[in-house]
């Protein structure tokens, strides 16, 4: 608890100093601005909170949403923000774009929320952009990387609190080149916007690092037989293989790499391994994981000393939520950002003043590898990764924090 208190105090002080000029611009005594927007009263602020709470993508959002709620509950116990308690309304978006947009419309028109907070999958958060921009509703993503929703930036959408796909592609190649001394890296991603974004950053970083990105394979999310792409990778004779697909194809590829006799380091993106025990079962052969690494935007192993406070806090808040996924802690930074921005927006915040405050945030979360940095023209929050060696049983943190240097478009 001391760590949390220190983190909050340090961040609050830093933010207040940084934003003092902006805060002065808000006039709390202005009666016109007092309840200009819905979802705010003298006693509460209403937030629409959503994530995939059921279905096959539940692992990406369930614990994450409850971690965000845990942070709001903690703030409420400490008296709330400017005397107001945060009330959340929870919905299950199933990572479906149509469900998510429907939920946003319901939150805004029926529940009259002040702001929207949620989304764990890029494609669904991208779908939300048009509605929130048209209606000028602040939308803070929960843990979706959401490249296309935050790059190029738009005023009302903030996200990538776990990093964009660009962050992932850039840091993973940097790790392969610097830590594993790889010179010829094979790269396998999805054949969509998601894959295009991380591949662009990977190509950029490879060029900067003087390594060769060979056999860049892009596969469908629904691929059934991965023999051909892995055969092509084998023919290219790489000295490391990067996998940035979702967990299903990643398990198939890892398995096939072993079956085809390739014995080089494999580095997987965090989305490949949302549930390590399940990933191990799907690979089905511990020998295939003999030289396996994965990236994480967190500052430590989920059971590491730097993550202990958030793990303990979650366990205390939800004693019945057994074995939260490694994504759980991702829910905290976006909730922290909202709380800080509400504090900075003054005692009578409007949606516009909240967005202005969000646009100036810079703070350390206590859970992520790097700081959250937002700006007038920067809506993606986080840009760093650590890497972990995983042999199927034991997770060991590799030294160093890796920062993505690619900021461009595809």
């Amino acid at each position, binding site marked *: 608890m001391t760590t949390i208190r220190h983190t909050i105090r340090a961040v609050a002080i830093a933010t207040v100093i940084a934003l003092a000029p902006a805060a002065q611009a808000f006039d709390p005594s202005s009666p016109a601005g007092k309840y200009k927007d819905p979802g705010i009263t003298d006693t509460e602020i209403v937030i629409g909170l959503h994530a995939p709470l*059921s*279905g*096959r993508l*539940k*692992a990406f959002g369930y614990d994450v949403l409850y971690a965000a709620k845990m942070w709001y509950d903690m703030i409420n116990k400490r008296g709330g923000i400017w005397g107001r308690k945060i009330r959340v309304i929870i919905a299950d978006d199933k990572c479906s774009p149509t469900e998510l947009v429907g939920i946003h419309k319901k939150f805004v028109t029926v529940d009259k929320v002040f702001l929207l907070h949620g989304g764990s999958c890029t494609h669904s958060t991208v779908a939300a952009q048009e509605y929130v921009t048209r209606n000028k509703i602040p939308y803070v993503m929960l843990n979706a990387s959401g490249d296309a929703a935050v790059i190029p930036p738009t005023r009302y959408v903030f996200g990538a609190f776990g990093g964009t796909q660009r962050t992932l592609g850039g840091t993973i190649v940097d790790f392969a080149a610097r830590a594993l001394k790889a010179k010829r890296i094979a790269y396998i991603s999805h*054949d969509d916007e998601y894959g295009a974004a991380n591949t662009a950053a990977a190509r950029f970083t490879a060029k900067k690092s003087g390594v060769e990105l060979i056999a860049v*394979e*892009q*596969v*469908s999310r*629904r*691929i*059934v*037989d991965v*023999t*051909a*792409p892995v*055969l*092509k990778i*084998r023919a290219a004779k790489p000295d490391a293989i990067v996998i940035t697909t979702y*967990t*299903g194809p990643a*398990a*198939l590829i890892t*398995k096939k790499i*072993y*079956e*085809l*006799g390739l014995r080089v380091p494999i580095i997987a993106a965090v989305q490949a391994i949302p*549930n390590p025990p*399940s990933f191990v*079962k*799907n690979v*089905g*052969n511990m*020998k*295939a994981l003999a030289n396996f690494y994965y990236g994480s935007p967190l500052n430590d192993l989920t059971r590491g000393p730097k993550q202990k406070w958030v793990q303990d806090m979650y366990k205390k808040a939800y004693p019945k939520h057994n074995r939260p996924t490694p994504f759980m802690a991702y829910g905290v930074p976006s909730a922290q950002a909202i709380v800080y921005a509400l504090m900075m927006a003054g005692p009578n915040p409007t949606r516009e003043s909240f967005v202005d405050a969000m646009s100036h945030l810079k703070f350390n979360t206590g859970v992520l590898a790097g700081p959250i940095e937002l700006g007038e023209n920067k809506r993606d929050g986080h840009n760093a990764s650590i890497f972990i060696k995983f042999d199927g049983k034991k997770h060991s943190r590799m030294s160093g924090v890796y920062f993505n240097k690619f900021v461009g478009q595809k």
Partner: protein
Amino acid sequence: MTGSIYALIALSLVIVFKSTEVINFGGGEIVMISAYIAMFFLILFGLPYLVVVPVTALVVFVIGASFDRVVLDRVLGRHRPGQDIMVAMVIATVGLSYVLKGTVRLFSVSDDVRTLPPIFSTDPIFIGDIVLSQQDIAIFLISIMVMMLLFGFFTFTRIGKALRATSENPRAAMLVGIPVRRMRTLVWGIAAALAAVAGVLVSPKLLVSPDMGGIIILAFAAAIIGGFTNVLGVIVGGVVIGVIENLVGLFISSKAIAITPFIVIILVLIARPQGLFGGAVPIKKV
């Protein structure tokens, strides 16, 4: 190697089509539910594959036969002269696919993608530059064995001969005392059991999820290549589609793998609608 599994699934489609003229759009979901049933026996009861394969086939046989008895029989019973009964039958199989997928989604086991444990060792065998996995070889051999058993059943057994007679001319079969209705139920059961064996064999190689029924498109491509009524052609079609898929991935692009079966289907339908091994397009006498 994977082509042999596509061939098995395609066979399950073809024997139903040959006997009832119905294209089973629920075939993929029968494969999917078989994988979940096998997972249930493997993980919950810790049974070996030697037991799991026949037990799963038996359970799924009952599902297939029950679908015919409970659903298709009633659809046929409501048939009025002049109505196109085939449309209703095909829609019923689409319904079956949704029911099976929805049923699996009711259980939390479907929340996460899974695979079944390997049937044999996945260690590679190197023959010069060629790499084979022991599991792939085993799956291929088992598939061939199942196809041979099926061939033996249809060629040498009394029931098999009765089934063939029913598929060739149901009216004549009825006249010589073959219980056509029961035979149709049996065909649905056998086709489902065949799909179940394919489902169990393919699951250690693929991911088990409620969406894995999408594999049926590869079986359709195999059946269309081979000719929808030619059993041997379908087996060859399965192997061909497996090979084409990988050749496209290797020499064109990995991105093109997903669209390969659709392109194959279109090309075969344009160039040779009866399939590469099918005879002339049959003209139905009315």
